[in-house]
């Protein structure tokens, strides 16, 4: 945690004069101290050790985001009757909390679908069109996120 913050500070500042390095060290210590006091280190941290393994998923998700952007753009410029707002319920099959959050966030990240509620393993989704809702019900995204967990 300390090392990540130190690297982050150096990358953002790009200066190596003692004053700025000192200020950086102090602020990092304060942040770490506050985080420890808040007991903020738990299983919900960003799993850095998994981030590399997730790369193929991010690439796939980026493609999906581009596709759904085009769909929403069509609705924006087309006639208003092209939209068919829908609400659906999905069952998340991920085992861990992080997996469910990644799934729910991925749904929201793709335009045209927004996660409205995540309770237990039930996800309530609002979709701009019935087609966008149907593509979620195919469960491909759910499956891909579940495979990340292994």
């Amino acid at each position: 945690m300390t090392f990540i913050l130190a690297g982050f500070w150096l990358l953002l500042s790009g200066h190596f004069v003692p004053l700025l390095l000192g200020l950086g060290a102090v602020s990092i210590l304060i942040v770490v101290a506050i985080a420890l006091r808040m007991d903020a280190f738990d299983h919900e941290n960003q799993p850095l050790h998994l981030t590399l393994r997730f790369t193929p998923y991010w690439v796939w998700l980026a493609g999906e985001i581009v596709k759904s952007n085009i769909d929403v753009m069509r609705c924006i410029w087309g006639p208003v009757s092209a939209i068919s707002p829908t609400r659906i319920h999905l069952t998340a099959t991920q085992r861990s909390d992080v997996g469910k959050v990644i799934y729910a966030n991925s749904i929201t990240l793709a335009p045209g679908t927004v996660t409205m509620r995540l309770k237990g393993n039930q996800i309530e989704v609002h979709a701009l069109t019935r087609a966008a809702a149907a593509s979620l019900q195919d469960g491909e995204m759910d499956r891909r996120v579940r495979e990340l967990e292994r």
Partner: protein
Amino acid sequence: MAMIIDVLSWTCLLAGGFLGVSGGIGILRFPDFFTRLHAAGVTDTLCAALILVGLMMQAGLGLVMVKLVFIFLFLSLTSPTATHALARAALRGGLRPLFHREEDDPSKA
């Protein structure tokens, strides 16, 4: 080579700008709060990504590019959270989404 990068970068910037304007138009055109969220999603995702990629190409390899990458990463982590928080707050506040047809509304089925 610099020319090619310039052309690519300006294509990204202009496409991003167009998406941003479209997102705004969508927010004005769509009928209710929840559908407008989807239009705002265009601005959150592809528009921001294209503009940042365009700027990265202008910046070249270096610290500025690293900072732009950070902006991109944080934006892609926080924007879905913010959108979800908005939708959730609207639901809790008693706002009901419009539905295209009655049967799309599970609460009436």
